[in-house]
């Protein structure tokens, strides 16, 4: 009796363990498939909503701010902005005019990323900097719209990051990198 018990235990244990790991694998796989599907969907949806004349469909989300301008929409991916029914090419100097800066939330929702969101080794082009004291400092040091940045490394504790820009390494804190928006 006792001998049987001893023999049967390992078997039981093994089978339990097996079934458990099978469940975990199954759940994980399921989650993975769903996330892939969802992310694909969102990518597709974004592509559909692009209001840029280059993609053809003009499906401009309209925002009515307090200022003088009534409607505004744009596609930062192709650097176009629609302003009072005319499409304007976004120039790197133009983003500094107050009217465009006011709509920066539009840029963010339309696929621009903050520099602080980039991972090590990733690169992109500076689209614009939010206009305040920090960006003035960054501009003077060569962080200009149109320049290519590469995330060279992050500090071991994750915070200051080092970027490669116009031929040298610049280190800045994440909160400062929040002011730089990257396209591409």
């Amino acid at each position, binding site marked *: 009796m006792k001998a049987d018990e001893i023999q049967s235990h390992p078997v039981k244990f093994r089978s339990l363990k097996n079934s458990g790991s099978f469940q975990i694998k199954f759940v994980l796989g399921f989650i993975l498939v769903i996330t892939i599907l969802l992310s694909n969907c969102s990518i597709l949806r974004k592509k559909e909503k692009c209001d840029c004349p280059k993609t053809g469909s003009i499906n401009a989300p309209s925002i009515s701010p307090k200022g003088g301008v009534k409607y505004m929409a744009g596609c930062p991916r192709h650097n176009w902005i629609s302003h009072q029914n005319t499409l304007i090419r976004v120039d790197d100097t133009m983003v500094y005019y107050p009217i465009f800066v006011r709509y920066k939330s539009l840029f963010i929702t339309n696929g621009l990323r903050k520099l602080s969101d980039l991972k090590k080794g990733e690169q992109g082009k500076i689209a614009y900097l939010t206009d305040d004291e920090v960006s003035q400092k960054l501009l003077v040091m060569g962080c200009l719209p149109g320049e290519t940045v590469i995330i060279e490394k992050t500090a071991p504790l994750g915070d200051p990051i080092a970027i490669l820009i*116009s*031929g040298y390494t610049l280190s800045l804190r994440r909160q400062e990198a929040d002011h730089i928006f990257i396209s591409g």
Partner: protein
Amino acid sequence: MIDETIEKPPVNPVKSDKVGAEQFHNVNTFRIALTGNPNSGKSCLFNALTGLHQHTGNYPGVTIDKKTGWFSLPGKNIRAEIIDLPGIYGLTPGSEDETITYKILTGLEKGVQLNLAVVVIDASKLKRSLFLCSELIDRGIPVVIALNMVDVAENKGISVDPEKLSAELRVPVIPVNAKKQAGIQNLVQAVSAAYRAAPVTFPKPVADNSPGNAGRTIQRYRKISEIVEACVKISPRSDRIVPIVLDYLVTHKFWGYFLFLTVLFLIFQAIFSWSSYPMDLIDSSFIKLRIFLRQILPAGLITDLFTDGIIPGIGGILMFIPQIAFLFFFIAILEDTGYLARVSFIMDKLMRKIGLNGRSVIPLISGAACAIPAIMSTRTIKNRKERLVTAFVIPLISCSARIPVYILLVSLIIPSEEKIWIFNMQGIVLMAFYLLGVIAVTVTAGFLRLMVSSKEPSYFIMELPEFQVPQWKTVGLTILDKVKVFTVEAGQIILAISIILWVLASYGPGDSMEKIEKRYAGKEFIGHLNEREASVMKQSEKLSASWAGVLGRKLEPVIEPLGFDWKIGIAIITSFAAREVFVGTMATIYSVGDISNQTLRNRMAMEINPGTGKKQYGLPVCLSLMVFYAFALQCMSTIAVMYRETRHWKWPLLQLCFLTGIAYLLSFITYQILS
């Protein structure tokens, strides 16, 4: 605040008499400002141009060193005065050093009128370097460009055509190599050719940080890009492997901190133990000098002042030189190689949590050896608020002068044999006091972060310069400069305080001193004592009758709640010279009426409190005293150096009151709980 100063028109040199006189003075000096980006080899070029003909002063009201040097212009018999300005990227006033550079370059700083600006340009970062240069040219300042680091650029595959650059910008461009001192003569020739006797008069400056400036910056850069494209050829070149590997290692998750700890260990060793040899040498030679002077000079007041007041005072100042030299030897190398920037890079997040900067690490750690060089090294922190907070909390780290005090007191409360497992109990208590210091730093810095207001926001936007071999000349000149600044500027205050302390300890009210002298002069009083014992006893009686003794007794009601008596009061006053003096003073006091030749420790252990009948130096008093010494700012040199670094008496006095207040409060709590 900056805007107001900008709006002011520049001083008209002709109308005001005072400035007119200055103008007259300027006739034979040709003022040059040396400017450029940080890490462009500016200081190196400054040293190459001036050699030892340099002087560090200060700008009025700010804590930035003003480095000026001289060299003569060939064939003109004219001395050129050159000012080494702090490195900046553009003419935008922001932090303290940027503001001062901005003011000088735009002619707003009174009494400094420029004739010429020499802009050092890093050929490997031409675009960024030309930004500042173009701003200067636009303001009508005569500019000579020193094109530095051509070799570095060539290694990267960037070749710059200086003639084309000169033609594009319409200013002379001289290729130099500041490190190898090449091209310096050409630069001097160019400066000489640009010589104009009359200083530059500036057009009314416009505020440069006005809104919409960002667009102007971009437009300026666009123009610079065109110029750069015209005179730069880029050929792809493979990166050198050594700097990349080094860079990877020093910012690595494990190796970065490991290397940093090793460097800290080296620095700590140097200022803690290696510097003790030259320090002992200075100490013993000053003792010899005192003995010698006392022998050759006639006995009297002046001799006493010399041998007991001034000479030990000077000795006390010179004692710090080895520590300062060692610390700045390391800091200059770390700064020069580009390692310091990476240390702040890996430490910034930790230090920011307590309101400090990544650069605060090295000053704080070296504070464990001595607060004096540590406070001086806070200069590497650019932000004023962070620098002040760091300097403020440095004295909380237990420095080496506190060790004798701790050891004496620990030995009174814990027998040396007591052990926990294999660890000596005394050692554990000592370590606990070091930890107490670290905790105090964290808490105080966190508290001060909220208290100290600052208009200057904390940035960490800085270049991580490439690794370089340090320039030994620069290192040497940095050490020389720091030692000079300390001995001349902080030394004056230290000397003054040490003379006051000497007066306090050797003179008493009325004729009390003479009475003691007379008593010991009589043979019958000495009786069975030998000469040495008699002189020791006379010393201690004199000390308790002196002003310091009187003050100690007056202090007694104040320090009684901490468990201290008037004897400790005297020791607290005299140890203001240096904390370790506490032990010497206690030894002198406790030799009164004691002929048993006991050691100080045993003598103190036997002391009975007349009020309670218990041991005077039991656990409560000793711990309370140790806590007091851990927190109180018991060091005149720290106060002097703090004044020198902040240029204001407000900070050292605030620090003195704050730290001593905390010390009082915590000792009070310790004593009241334990007794």
